[in-house]
């Protein structure tokens, strides 16, 4: 991994602590970094990610915005255009639908429309995903929408270490970056290097090497896929698990190289299955040099063609789980599809 750590020591931190540490490090090092968002000050953010940062950096740098997603996102874009590095937190990524204009028409296009003469180094933090009983309007996984927009970068760190390293990489990036953070990951703990380091955007990570099939998973699905892979190993099936990490830019090379090796591909993501990450990766593989090495149809496991339901069993059934990944991987490995 391309980690450039000043210190090599690591501690166990939760995903949200890792994000907070990244923000604090950046704010200490660079006075132009500011945080904006709804209730990120004394409240500490809807998911307590900013927590006490307002005490450390004051309300001028940890700014509570009115309930104005469009305006707030636009202010962040304008500020980024003129010398600040704002991290704008959407309370739920679903609310970014209110700010599509500023994200898609402005942030993504300003550099291009202005012929490279402008830069919009803004970071949008997007708490996403289901599993919290928040139902249809607070549980979506809209990352693929933004993956469709040239000019944006879209990342989905799956571990505390990446959450910190990729957020710092996003802050160092001169272009707008959307960080999709799965809400169920916030409490997940993991080893996190101390000090400043960046984890490159656009590079997938092979989390488990294998030879029989490739599972490309994004965000929380990486952990479910790894759990499934562990069980598969007990059944004599060797699954390679790739953590996508970045949707735009996407790491063609790592995926294609893996599929060349295994000949079988399963893509697991939480966003609605159709027109999503899976479609993009499938098509990319079909167009690639890996085509000749495919020995089974490509399978996608994505979210149901429905809004996220409230009932916990329905909610669980609406997105891929360990058992559904396991079942699909078995079918692939056993040539049942």
């Amino acid at each position, binding site marked *: 991994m391309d980690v450039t750590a000043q210190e090599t020591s690591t501690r166990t931190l939760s995903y949200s602590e890792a994000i907070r540490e990244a923000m604090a490090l950046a704010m200490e090092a660079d006075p*132009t970094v*500011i945080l904006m968002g709804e209730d990120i000050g004394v409240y500490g953010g809807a998911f307590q990610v900013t927590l006490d940062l307002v005490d450390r950096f004051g309300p*001028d*740098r940890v*700014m509570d*915005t*009115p309930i*104005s997603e*469009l*305006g*707030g*996102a*636009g*202010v*962040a*874009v*304008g*500020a*980024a*255009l*003129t*010398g*600040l590095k*704002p991290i704008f937190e959407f309370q739920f990524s679903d609310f970014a639908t209110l700010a599509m*204009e*500023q994200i898609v*028409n*402005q942030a993504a296009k*300003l*550099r*291009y*429309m*202005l*012929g*490279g*003469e*402008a*830069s919009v180094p803004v970071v949008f933090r997007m708490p996403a995903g289901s599993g919290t009983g928040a139902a249809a309007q607070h549980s979506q996984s809209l990352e693929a929408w933004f993956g469709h927009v*040239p*000019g944006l*970068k879209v990342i989905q760190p799956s571990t505390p270490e990446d959450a910190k390293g990729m957020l710092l990489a996003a802050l160092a*990036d*001169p*272009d707008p970056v959307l960080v999709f953070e799965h809400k169920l990951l916030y409490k997940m703990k993991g080893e996190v290097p101390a000090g400043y380091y960046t984890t490159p955007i656009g590079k997938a990570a092979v989390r488990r090497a294998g030879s029989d099939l490739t599972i490309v998973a994004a965000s929380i699905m990486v952990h479910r896929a790894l759990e499934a892979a562990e069980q598969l190993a007990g059944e004599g099936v060797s699954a390679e698990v790739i953590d996508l990490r970045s949707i735009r830019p996407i790491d063609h090379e790592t995926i294609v190289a893996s599929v060349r090796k295994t000949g079988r591909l399963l893509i697991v993501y939480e966003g609605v299955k159709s027109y999503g990450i899976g479609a993009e990766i499938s098509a990319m593989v079909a167009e690639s040099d890996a085509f000749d090495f495919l020995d089974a149809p490509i399978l996608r496991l994505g979210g149901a063609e429905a809004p996220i339901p409230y009932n916990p069993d329905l909610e669980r059934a609406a997105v891929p789980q360990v058992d559904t990944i396991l079942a699909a991987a078995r079918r692939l490995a056993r040539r049942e599809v």
Partner: protein
Amino acid sequence: MSTTDNRPFAIRTYSPAQLKQALKRMYLVRRFEEGAEQSYMRGLIHGTMHLSIGQEASAVASCIELTDADKITSNHRGHGHCIAKGADVARMFAEFFGKETGYCHGRGGSMHIADVQTGNLGANGIVGGGLPIAVGAALSAKRLGRKDVTLCFFGDGANNEGAFHEALNMAAIWTLPVVFICENNKYGMSTSVERSTAVRRISERAAAYSMPGVTVDGNDFSAVAEAVHHAIARARAGEGPSLVENLTYRWRGHSKSDRNRYRTKEEIEAWMARDPIARFQAELIAHGVLDEAEAIAIAEAAVSDVEQGIEFARGSAAPAIGEVTRYVYAEA
């Protein structure tokens, strides 16, 4: 200056050099747009355009005090704002012609002309798109301890966008150095302000955000300059935003597709009789800032600048086809 000076505000406030430059810029705006229209008709320009002929005083008077450190955000009818902020018409034409030498290297066209170096953050194709961005720019100035202000130009149509309300509210709660300048030219495309807007004066909406709001004759250079001057002073003093509504009129249609079915010939002619350039020039002559000959020379210089600009644009190279994805992201 004596307290009994009852010359117009602009005459008594700005130097003759500033005033002459302003007149030149008004001529430039008009000749530039006429030149663009001609080029369009000859097929040299392939997109549409939104002309501001008739609104030159609003743009130029609003910007007369600005320095390169100050910012503006503009809208789809933005050529006047660009020139008022000091843009070079040759590079503007080059952009219009889609050339590599244009302000946006041919990637933006009429609707996205910008010059970030001189504080022009760009025209914007989305109605209301520039309002939150202007607030963000003002936030940068305040946070970074700079004294610059941001002028935010938009039309009457934008005042019914949510972004307008969110932006004005945030500018007010954070006391940001931004001046919202609504160029009310009576129609949002074909829909009149009367039919689209609940308040009689758009400036009345300032009250909802606890900021000063004023409506002026947007074709009166001095009236605009005075209103914006006070707003800028308030902004620079750290007292927060203001809303200035300039009542004006576009002589041309909304865009090149406009068949002018929503306004009468009489209305258009009545507004053409209130030509802001002729009014400003007459005022300058009346107050001895310049004479007829100088005025003619300024007008001719504008014509010549425009002709040279078109030549420059025509002679410039087009972007390389292979560079279609250049500038999407920062170059490594």
